[in-house]
């Protein structure tokens, strides 16, 4: 119902369409070219005035549409082919190259960094072993020196000890030697006091010697 009422409005509206350009007299330009064009177009056009022809099937404007399509699409195609496609293709390729290049650069830097780390670790290990060696040497040297010092001191002490022992022996011998004499003197004094007689020196000496051996 609605569509039919809409169709009813087509007829009064028809002159309005060509009136749009303003310069062309309404209705007439539609008919004029149609009359000159070959019959097929004319027939189709006649139908349109009856209000029946479906606009997309109206052959009146087919040549015009084809011509303008060829012009516009042709220009568009040329612009695409000559400017846009190379340009966008170039942009994409450039970006692709750039990314590949950056990746290469990154991997190069990474390998450099790896090499640097390796060198650093090697040097660190070398330094560490060198330090170890130095410490070892120093410890060995210190140990050697300490041992030498101790040996020297021990030798000196032993020497002093033997000197002292010799001295002690000498004093002891001397003392022992004097012991006999003192004993003899003491014995003669004791005898003198006890019996008032003088014992011969030789007897006393023999007695002391005997006592000494007993002791």
């Amino acid at each position: 119902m609605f569509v039919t009422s809409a169709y009813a409005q087509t007829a009064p509206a028809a002159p309005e369409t060509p009136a749009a350009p303003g310069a062309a007299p309404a209705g007439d330009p539609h008919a004029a070219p149609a009359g000159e064009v070959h019959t097929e177009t004319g027939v189709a056009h006649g139908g349109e005035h009856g209000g029946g022809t479906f606009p997309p099937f109206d052959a009146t404007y087919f040549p015009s549409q084809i011509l303008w399509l060829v012009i516009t699409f042709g220009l568009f195609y040329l612009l695409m082919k000559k400017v846009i496609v190379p340009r966008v293709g170039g942009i994409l390729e450039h970006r692709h190259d750039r990314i590949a290049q950056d990746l290469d650069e990154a991997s190069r830097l990474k390998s450099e960094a790896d090499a640097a780390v390796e060198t650093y670790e090697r040097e660190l290990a070398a330094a560490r072993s060198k330090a170890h060696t130095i410490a070892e040497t120093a410890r060995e040297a210190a140990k050697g020196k300490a041992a030498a010092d101790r040996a020297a001191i021990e030798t000196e002490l032993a020497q002093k000890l033997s000197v002292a022992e010799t001295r002690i022996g000498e004093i002891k011998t001397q003392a022992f030697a004097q012991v006999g004499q003192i004993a003899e003197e003491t014995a003669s004094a004791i005898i003198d006091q006890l019996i008032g007689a003088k014992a011969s020196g030789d007897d006393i000496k023999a007695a002391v010697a005997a006592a000494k051996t007993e002791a």
Partner: protein
Amino acid sequence: MANDPIHQFQISKIVPIEIGGIDFSFTNASLFMVATVACAAGFLYFSTSQRGLIPGRAQSVAEMSYEFIAGMLREGAGSHGMKFFPLVFSLFMFVLTANLLGMFPYFFTVTSQIIVTFALALLVIGTVLVYGFYKHGLHFLQLFVPSGIPGLLIPLVVAIEVISFLSRPISLSVRLFANMLAGHITLKVFAGFVASLGTMGALGIGGAVLPLIMTVALTGLEFLVAFLQAYVFAVLTCMYLNDAIHPGGH
């Protein structure tokens, strides 16, 4: 007038031109062809003029459409098909822009004219024929003789293949034309219901809500169809070009 769903396809002259008795007038259809080309070319030209290594939004869209078509063509017609890239890209951008421009109220939809879609389809089939015969000579006719068919069936299969080949420009053009036409008519009819019901008083305004919702939903659907039909046109172009490049490869 305003409610006539067919009126939007009416062609009107803007600059009458007549050469050799044939009407080549610059019409509203021509105007929108120019607008389509200007929009598509202008967008692609200015969005990529920076040639940014890191694309902006507009450049991203241009690059995406480029890569979308490039991927489609490479998949459909192999790497040899890339020589047709400018053609497929132009067709896709032209049809897509024309469809999308047609979504504006009061705008003319270039692709709702059968002659336009038929001319574009003929361009595709013409390219297939010319390149096929140029590249493969008479071997191109192998296209109609699929391998591995028993001898008895060959005439029948060849007949079917020939008919299917001949129907290609028709199906290619009618698909795009009919989708755009039907969608726009439906949209207009439902929008017309809103207006005519709205004049019927309070009850009518209440009743107009349903077609209004329908119109909004259809508008969304039409945007999808606008893209989808451009995509389908481009995909089929790739498939047909594949026949021209590899005629034996059925």
